[in-house]
């Protein structure tokens, strides 16, 4: 069991290590040129890039800079954002060609005097930096992203039974990191297969397929494997790893996909430990 002190010490060690690596790499500027992709698909507006001179400080993020430009220069910049702390996944965009969260990317970590902001690739474009996520969510939904358990008591009148599925920490660790997905779409944007194949579910959906496959409360592993065993399914992933490279939450969808494929190919055993349903009222 890792203690709070150990975690804090680890973070301090990592901060010192990163500080050493980043000395000279942290680029401090007083202002930056922000180049923003502008187009309104609904009215057939032609695409163009607008530039804005934005003052920056050491902690200024790309989102801060965009909102400054929106507030002070051009109110019509279309942008999605919400939590400003890499928790909601709304502000995903291509920053200098790489899919990143605007709120999580500091100006000081970007090279060059011009920062280019473009909408996420592989998503239908709506306006400026805003894209349509309905295909992405549809692929996710196709994976049946919920616990499937025929033994689960769904009858409300049975609620007095106080039953729960027991999971040990090791059982949770098998799927926990994949449950941290915030559906920001950065992995979908980075994936080379998604760039061409419209039927490929994408790293987010396949990662979630593994999340539920590995969960000991789920009793439909075979059905989940059959779902991805298709011409445009899991085998169209070639472990380019770009999804895990860009993921801001450490979900590592590439890991989930390869582990799921290992089960499909027979590299890993398919006997699954199923969580026991405990009736707590009879403790």
């Amino acid at each position: 069991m890792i203690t709070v002190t150990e975690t804090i010490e680890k973070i301090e060690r990592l901060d010192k290590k990163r500080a050493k690596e980043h000395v000279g790499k942290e680029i401090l500027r007083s202002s930056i040129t922000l180049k923003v992709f502008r187009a309104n698909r609904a009215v057939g507006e032609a695409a163009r890039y607008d530039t804005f001179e934005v003052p920056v400080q050491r902690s200024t993020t790309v989102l801060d800079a965009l909102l400054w430009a929106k507030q002070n220069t051009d109110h019509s910049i279309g942008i999605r954002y919400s939590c400003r702390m890499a928790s909601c996944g709304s502000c995903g965009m291509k920053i200098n060609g790489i899919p990143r969260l605007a709120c999580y990317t500091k100006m000081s970590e970007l090279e060059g005097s011009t920062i280019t902001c473009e909408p996420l690739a592989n998503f239908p474009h709506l306006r400026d930096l805003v894209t349509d996520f309905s295909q992405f969510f549809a692929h996710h939904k196709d994976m049946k992203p919920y616990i499937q358990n025929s033994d689960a008591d769904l009858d409300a009148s049975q609620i007095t039974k106080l039953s729960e599925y027991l999971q040990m920490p090791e059982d949770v660790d098998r799927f926990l990191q994949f449950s941290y997905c915030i559906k920001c779409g950065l992995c979908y944007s980075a994936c080379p297969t998604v760039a061409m194949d419209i039927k490929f579910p994408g790293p987010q959906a396949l990662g979630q397929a593994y999340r539920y496959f590995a969960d000991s409360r789920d009793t439909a592993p075979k059905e989940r494997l059959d779902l991805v065993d298709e011409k445009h399914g899991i085998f169209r992933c070639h472990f380019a790893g770009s999804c895990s490279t860009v993921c801001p939450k450490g979900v590592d969808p590439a890991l989930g996909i390869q582990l799921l494929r290992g089960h499909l190919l027979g590299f890993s055993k398919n006997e699954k430990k199923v969580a026991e349903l405990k009736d707590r009222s009879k403790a």
Partner: protein
Amino acid sequence: MEVYDRNNREGLKGWLNPGRYGWERVSYWLQRLTGVGLLVYFVGHVYETSSLTQGFDAWNAMLELTQTPLGHMILLLVIGMSTFHSANGIRLIFTHGGKGLGKPGRPDYPYDPVSLNYRQKSGIWVALILAAVAMLYGASVLFGGE
């Protein structure tokens, strides 16, 4: 099945710029390129060796066409491609089976992905180095003379 919109998909351009995302993306790109290259060579090779069935003169005419400096350069490229494709392919068979990637756990700052570990990166480098060594040896045989 809904008809999905191709709008804003990167398309082939998404394949052609492998340098953005690290070594694993480069190895994906090289694996594809070498695979297609080797397939083209394979078909050509089956065709060129069929000149054997037309007798001594046809075979020698084929050799005159292929045993040239350009032919040897192409063969060197094929040697490099096949070595990289094989070595990287073996790495990929293991990773596609979920081996050599580490275990899922509790992500912690700085959220480095466990699957893109030193084993994968060094596997890619080993494949590249083996390809280079094979090409060097091939060059010594093809251009070095008996």
